[in-house]
């Protein structure tokens, strides 16, 4: 028993890595299919996007994430665009993180191709712009003050979809997706002064930082991490818009198992620790 406790206390971290690796991969081979229960914060975002149906106003997505956070934030971007395109809601994409511009373009193009949408009519990608505070202030007056042309250098005036979009008054719903404070800057420079409907999509670690914005009404909801993205996919399935869940839901089984494994290791570590403390007390006596 003493030997076992010692071995547990001095466990080589590579065993934990192996356990995590197996628990991460296994659910992809043998799906568990745990039920996903959407939170009210994700439901709020869903309801706002759903309300755009038939209005002709676009869903504006700010793709402010880079490849590092793509695993968490990418699936929510895809789910949001699926939702918009399935309801024939136009999508307007832009981005303020230069390291993620190409990634954003890949995502928006892929989603559009999946739904047979046409560039310039159903979706537009404006690309990256520097000095985001000025851009956000300019967009309150006229988006053309900052974006004369789109990502492909086509003049904005040549895009039919953009003829109906001038400023925040013409945005149906705006979502900032990112793993940095950029999602917060949208509130500071955009929602705060100009008051339009906005929601946050961010990594799980950052989500708890932004709950106060829901309390103040500055964010209409939060999609936090892969769990949030999976909840959104579940809502799409429940609404009959999709027939299957997406990548996030698949990853959630994996995440669930990993969490259990981590908790298991914590419990084991504490058992070994208490065993060691007890042994030391006995030895002192």
């Amino acid at each position, binding site marked *: 028993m003493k030997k076992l406790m010692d071995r547990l206390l001095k466990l080589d*971290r590579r065993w934990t890595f192996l356990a995590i690796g197996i628990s991460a991969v296994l659910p992809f081979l043998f799906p568990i299919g745990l039920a996903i229960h959407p939170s009210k914060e994700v439901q709020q975002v869903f309801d706002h996007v759903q309300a755009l149906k038939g209005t002709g106003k676009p869903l504006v997505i700010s793709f402010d994430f880079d490849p590092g956070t793509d695993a968490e934030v990418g699936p929510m971007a895809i789910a949001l665009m699926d939702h918009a395109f399935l309801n024939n809601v136009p999508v307007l994409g832009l981005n303020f993180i230069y390291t993620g511009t190409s990634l954003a373009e890949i995502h928006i193009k892929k989603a559009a191709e999946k739904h047979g949408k046409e560039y310039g009519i159903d979706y537009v990608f404006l690309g990256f712009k520097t000095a985001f505070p000025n851009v956000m202030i300019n967009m309150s*007056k006229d988006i053309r003050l900052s974006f004369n042309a789109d990502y492909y250098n086509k003049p904005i005036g040549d895009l039919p979809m953009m003829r109906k979009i001038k400023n925040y*008054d013409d945005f149906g719903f705006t979502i900032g997706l990112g793993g940095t404070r950029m999602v917060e800057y949208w509130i500071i420079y955009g929602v705060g002064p100009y008051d339009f409907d906005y929601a946050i999509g961010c990594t799980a670690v950052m989500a708890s930082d932004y709950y106060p914005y829901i309390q103040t009404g500055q964010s209409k909801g939060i999609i936090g991490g892969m769990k949030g993205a999976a909840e959104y996919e579940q809502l799409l399935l429940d609404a009959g818009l999709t027939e299957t869940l997406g990548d996030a839901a698949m990853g959630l089984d994996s995440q669930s198992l990993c969490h259990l494994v981590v908790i298991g290791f914590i419990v084991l570590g504490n058992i070994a620790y208490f065993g060691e403390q007890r042994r030391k007390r006995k030895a002192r006596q």
Partner: protein
Amino acid sequence: MLPVYAQDVKAPDSGALEKEPGSEEKADLPGAGLDVPSADEAQTTPPIPSPPLIDRPLPLNLRAEDVPNDGGWAIRLLWDKFPDGDIAAAVTNYEVLRKRGAGDDWEKVGEIKAESGKYADSHILAKDNKPEHFVIDGAQYSYKLRIIEDPAKESEIVSAVSEGQWLNTDHTIVLIATLLYVALVVFFIQRAKHGPKMYVRPIPGINAVEDAVGRATEMGKPVLYVPGIGVIEEIATLAAMTILSPIAEKVAEYGTPLLVPNRDPVVYSIAQEVVRQAYIKVGKPDAYVDDNIFFLSGRQFAYAAGVAGIMMREKPATNFFFGAFYAESLILAETGAATGAIQIAGTDQVTQLPFFIAACDYTLLGEELYAASAYLSGDPILVGSLKALDYAKILIFALMGSGFVAGLFGWSGILNLMKLN
């Protein structure tokens, strides 16, 4: 222009005037889409009775004024908001006409929906950004609104003069708070210069710095200092540079190698200078190795991978993580823990503190990072500024308490006083 008949207009929230995307773009002319019978049909179908025309509303209580708290070159028009559900207002658009002098012609400067209730005529809105279209400070401008769909209807003429403000009154409360805090800092700095030594609570992480450097010297291993991945404009990075100075002096005194990989090129230049000066100050300029302070990568995870590689190869005995860290914090801290190094971390990024707490031996939480340089230098003036910080916190607690009570009793006057517009 063809009038739009009331019966053809749907309620605003079903987006009647907005065409579905994917449909061919048609001109947004009123009457577009109306099913007008052909000549043949007109002979056989009964005549359609004329429905009443929409009475498009002019703006109520239109006024022009200088945009407050701005840099100038801007005038705004305001009018009363139309009631919710006002169909006529929902389908009305105005064109904004402006003239400068009495003899000038009216010039169209923009269009706006009647529902919006406001219009800003500013230089950043100037159509083609040409200076001749800007609103110039000091000159009187006259405005009127004309209904686009019914050009015979125009509003009254209103006038205003634009000027830039030298004080943003929306930030008054911030100015007062800042001046108050500056006064506190100056007071305690003066007191520290002339008064007795002030007590500050010990911070274990800072007390451990000397021992940590000593440990590295004894083991003959280098010290690794990671100044975060922030840019130099971030205060946390500046704080990291101020902490690097006394640590570099200690390291120079003991003759231990110091490695400082950087993510930002400006930070790299400053870090190099800081460490060089530290070696000069302790009288060992020849011991300074230029190559030990270097730029590694501008990409967050490439930098993290690079530093992790340095830790695995060089096996530093002591790791310092001070500055702004993001998602890579645990990668750095855990790799360092795997090499058996003693680790002291400090960041102002609240989301990364749990990772440092779990993986490092000592962690400076939030403001302790900013206090570290005062502790390490022992300079009474810097310690005095810490005291000001403590008293400012007491002031904030008092304000929070009064805000809580004011909120409970609905004393909006007090709450509005502290509101930042």
